[in-house]
């Protein structure tokens, strides 16, 4: 793993040079306008950029839950409504597809010396985005309950099933397992994780033709069904809020949840000391004899709009660099699993880092992956509920994908 290894050295260096960077925030005139989601880590980045205001530099932000709905229209307008957009692994795709963001190579060369090289998201050799946070779903387990049932911490999903059975047999819990299996995006994300862990792929190589209705796809679904067999019957309504609440109430022994939820789970709020002290974070398990953890890694980063003036683009990039300075990262150390220099991984980051070190794959950036994700989310719950076969569910998902991909121009 490249990024956390270099972190310590880089942050030491950056701390030395940091003071000068702070004073040199004087970027010159320009308008920085930012669009992104509304949560604490991004609020901290925006606050960092706002600290540079003055001397003709204005920084305005629109952090909203509806950001993804706005991004294409907002950046298509000329001049674009926003110069900076915070994107994630999947939401950069429509911007790339519509050619709305600019290559950052020159800006990186000029102002981005402090960045870790691994932060640069390159497509065809051109830097299109700068990543600054990461996230992944991974395993949470309760050491006390596993010990009580006499099982080891699971390393594979097969182990998870065995441990769940042992817990059930010992009469400790009726429903010891939970995943984020709400119908729709969440359920599809579990399928994606498991399918990649099984070594599967989603498309015929080099095309947008679907390739999930096969043995690997069936095995993926069977594993998901086996897991939800140990979940509360409400599992099709489980989003992150539900699984986190169940965990904090001490109702679960093992769960796959987002790394970004670890901070909230490990603080005492909403939970008892007994639960918190026994909560262990581990990398995502492997599955079906696969070598890499069955999860996908996500990054969050920023892009710069194409339809803004070069001056504003340069000002925006510099404002972002100032916001992502090692001091700012260190000051908000626990708000996220940062990729930028200045970060010291805390206990809440353990699961994400272990998954990454285990060689987990990034979430696929294929342009039609979003359509595949949606088709999966809408079609596999019927199999889990037992009202159709795995093959039928996969065939339905493929058919729904093909119809959508034709409308979007990926297939003819």
């Amino acid at each position, binding site marked *: 793993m490249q990024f956390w290894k270099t972190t310590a050295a880089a942050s030491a260096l950056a701390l030395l040079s940091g003071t000068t960077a702070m004073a040199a925030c004087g970027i010159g005139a320009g308008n920085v306008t930012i669009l992104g989601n509304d949560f604490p880590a991004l609020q901290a980045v925006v606050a960092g950029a706002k600290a540079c205001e003055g001397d003709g530099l204005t920084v305005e932000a629109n952090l909203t*839950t509806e950001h993804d709905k706005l991004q294409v229209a907002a950046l298509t307008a000329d001049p674009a409504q926003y110069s900076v957009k915070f994107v994630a692994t999947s939401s950069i795709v429509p911007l790339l597809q519509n050619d709305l963001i600019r290559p950052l190579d020159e800006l990186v060369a000029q102002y981005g010396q402090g960045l870790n090289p691994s932060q640069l998201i390159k497509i065809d050799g051109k830097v299109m985005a700068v990543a600054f946070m990461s996230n992944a779903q991974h395993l949470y387990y309760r050491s006390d309950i596993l010990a009580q049932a006499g099982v080891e911490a699971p390393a594979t999903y097969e182990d998870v099933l065995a441990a769940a059975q042992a817990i059930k047999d010992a009469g400790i819990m009726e429903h010891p397992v939970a995943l984020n299996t709400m119908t729709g995006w969440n359920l599809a994300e579990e399928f994606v994780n498991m399918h990649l862990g099984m070594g599967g792929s989603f498309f015929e190589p080099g095309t947008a033709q679907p390739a999930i209705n096969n043995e690997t796809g069936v095995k993926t679904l069977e594993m998901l069904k086996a897991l939800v067999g140990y979940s509360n019957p409400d599992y099709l309504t489980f989003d*992150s809020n539900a699984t986190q609440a169940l965990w904090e109430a001490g109702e679960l022994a093992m769960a796959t949840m987002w790394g970004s939820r670890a901070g909230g789970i490990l603080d005492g*709020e909403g939970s008892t000391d007994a639960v918190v002290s026994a909560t262990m974070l581990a990398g995502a398990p492997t599955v079906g004899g696969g070598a890499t953890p069955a999860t996908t890694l996500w990054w969050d980063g920023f892009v710069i709009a194409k339809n803004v003036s070069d001056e504003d683009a340069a000002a925006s990039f510099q404002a972002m660099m100032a916001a992502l300075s090692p001091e700012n990262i260190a000051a908000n150390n626990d708000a996220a699993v940062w990729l930028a220099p200045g970060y010291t991984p805390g206990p809440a980051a353990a699961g994400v880092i272990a998954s990454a070190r285990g060689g987990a794959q990034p979430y696929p950036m294929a342009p039609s992956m979003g359509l595949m994700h949606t088709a999966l989310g809408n079609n596999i719950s019927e199999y889990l509920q037992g009202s159709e076969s795995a093959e039928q569910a996969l065939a339905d998902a493929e058919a729904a994908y093909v119809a959508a991909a034709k409308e979007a121009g990926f297939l003819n």
Partner: protein
Amino acid sequence: MSAAVTRRPPAVALIATVLVVLWVVLAAFPFVWTVWGSFKVQGDFFSKADWTYALTGVRTMAETGSPFTGAGYEGAWVEREFWRAAVNTMIVVVFTVIISLTFGTLGGYALARSGYRYAFWLLMIALVFRAMPHITLVSGYLLPFFEWNLWGHLPTAIIVLVAINQPFTLWMLHSFFLNIPKDLDESAMVDGCTRFQAFRHVIVPVMWPGVITTGLFSFLLAYNDFAVTATLLSQQNQTMVPKIASFLGSTQVEGNVMFAVAAVVSATVPLFILILFFQRQIVSGLTAGAVKG
């Protein structure tokens, strides 16, 4: 209505009273529960362990040292500056209601007084317009609004809400004007008034009950709207409902659900006052206006 007409046999009165009491409990219970719960911590109000925590406040005791906490209110109003959203909502709602009603009374009056077939077809088209899902319309506005620099401003959201609400307003007010006798304005016109003067001096003074009722529905639409305000307003101009949505967090990030609960309870207060204030007019408005299909 005279006493003889309203008097009921004891059995009927009993059934009716039981029914009303049952309904009042059903209608009020979730709200009362929410008001109570807004003074607890999330671990109590949204407990997966035991719902009685919400009553006893076990976690609230453990986390704050007292059975009640104002943390949700403080977080929403002070930390996250919910008052800004409240001010924006007030502006949006007041202007939406005023403009909606101005346009609606003029149009509704015309539709009620015109005997031509096109008036009927206009009403039908208005119904088709009302059937259009808001979210589809709003997505269509985005690109032109960004291009023309109209996006993000309060007046834009206001005029969109007015337009989206026009079909319902027209229908309701048109039916209301049908109930005002034609002789009133026609005799004024015989006396030499123009149509507008007749409207202004004869109709306006008697139309208030119906207008206020229609206004209530415009008010509720603008007040509770999410689709329009969440997509068309920038963060500085954000209204209450999208602000509340931002408290809820997302898949990856935990939100502050208790901020949202406290904000919702606070957001209901103006509605309380408004309805208590206009209660008589609302009912008498529908009385006179009562929409005739």
